[in-house]
């Protein structure tokens, strides 16, 4: 399994992605500078990492979405390749119009870092297939702009087509405003495109995979990807 991790000026979770995919999962994981125009040959997964690409200038992810490498990331996705965007990576995928919606400033106006619980809404994706629908897992968030927003009509479309992959919830799996850390509409923590091969999420599964560093609630996502690739 070959993974490409695009690195932008200001990315700061690229090494978390490299550690999770390379060291923990043992995948062939290659950092790719944003000025490159081609992903490494035979790339199967593109992991767009978190951080503050281009200092969040204009809007979070807006400038990174125009970086030369992103044209090839789009081509990869158009051909059915997998793309996972985490945190700033999610913002970049939205700005690149590979996913619908936008991530606004948290309702509290504060940067929030916390462990949160997520409920799996779709267990049939390459990113979730090793998990069960309704399963709850714990992962950290660390963001100031994670307030997922979409026009009401588009939000209804997203929900009705099963575009929500993960929702914030209580440790017991209950959904409700009190469990949403950032004001995100419908408690949305992660979404997937129509084809099911591009997933964006604000929480950081890659920061919760190594038992030497702490809890491993994020492993489900990586085990799912491993399963998806062993069957491909």
């Amino acid at each position, binding site marked *: 399994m070959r993974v490409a991790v695009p690195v932008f000026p200001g990315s700061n979770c690229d090494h978390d992605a490299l550690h999770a995919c390379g060291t923990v999962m043992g995948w062939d994981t290659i950092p790719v500078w944003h000025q490159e125009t081609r992903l490494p040959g035979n790339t199967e997964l593109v992991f767009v990492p978190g951080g503050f690409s281009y200092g969040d200038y204009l809007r979070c992810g807006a400038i990174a979405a125009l970086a030369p490498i992103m044209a090839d990331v789009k081509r990869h996705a158009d051909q059915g390749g997998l793309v996972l965007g985490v945190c700033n990576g999610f913002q970049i995928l939205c700005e690149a119009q590979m996913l619908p919606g936008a991530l*606004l400033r948290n309702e509290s106006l504060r940067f929030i870092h916390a462990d949160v619980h997520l409920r799996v809404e779709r267990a049939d994706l390459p990113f979730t297939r090793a998990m069960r629908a309704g399963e709850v897992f714990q992962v950290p968030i660390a963001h100031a702009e994670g307030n997922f*927003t979409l026009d009401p009509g588009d939000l209804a479309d997203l929900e009705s087509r099963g575009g929500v992959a993960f929702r914030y919830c209580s440790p017991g799996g209950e959904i409700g405003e009190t469990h949403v850390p950032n004001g995100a509409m419908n408690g949305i923590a992660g979404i997937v495109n129509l084809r099911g091969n591009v997933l964006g999420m604000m929480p950081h599964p890659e920061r919760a995979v190594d038992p030497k560093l702490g809890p491993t609630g994020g492993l489900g996502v990586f085990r799912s990807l491993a399963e998806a690739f062993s069957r491909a």
Partner: protein
Amino acid sequence: MKVRVSVQLKPGILDPQGKAVEQGLHGFGFEVEHVRIGRLIEMEVPGSDATEVKTRAQAMCDKLLVNPVMEKASIEVL
């Protein structure tokens, strides 16, 4: 020609920054409501035909300056 693009959050999009500033103004005793915070972009665009320059500025908004999910823009050619 000088172009001024004013980017505002769409009505209905929560503006926590505007809300915080509104509360700050209330703290000073000002009577004020519906404070919304936007972004003002000024630029020099080559050309002498205002309509044509405005069309190009609109294209810039569509491509980069505005995220239509949450923002709207008004363009002024000065």
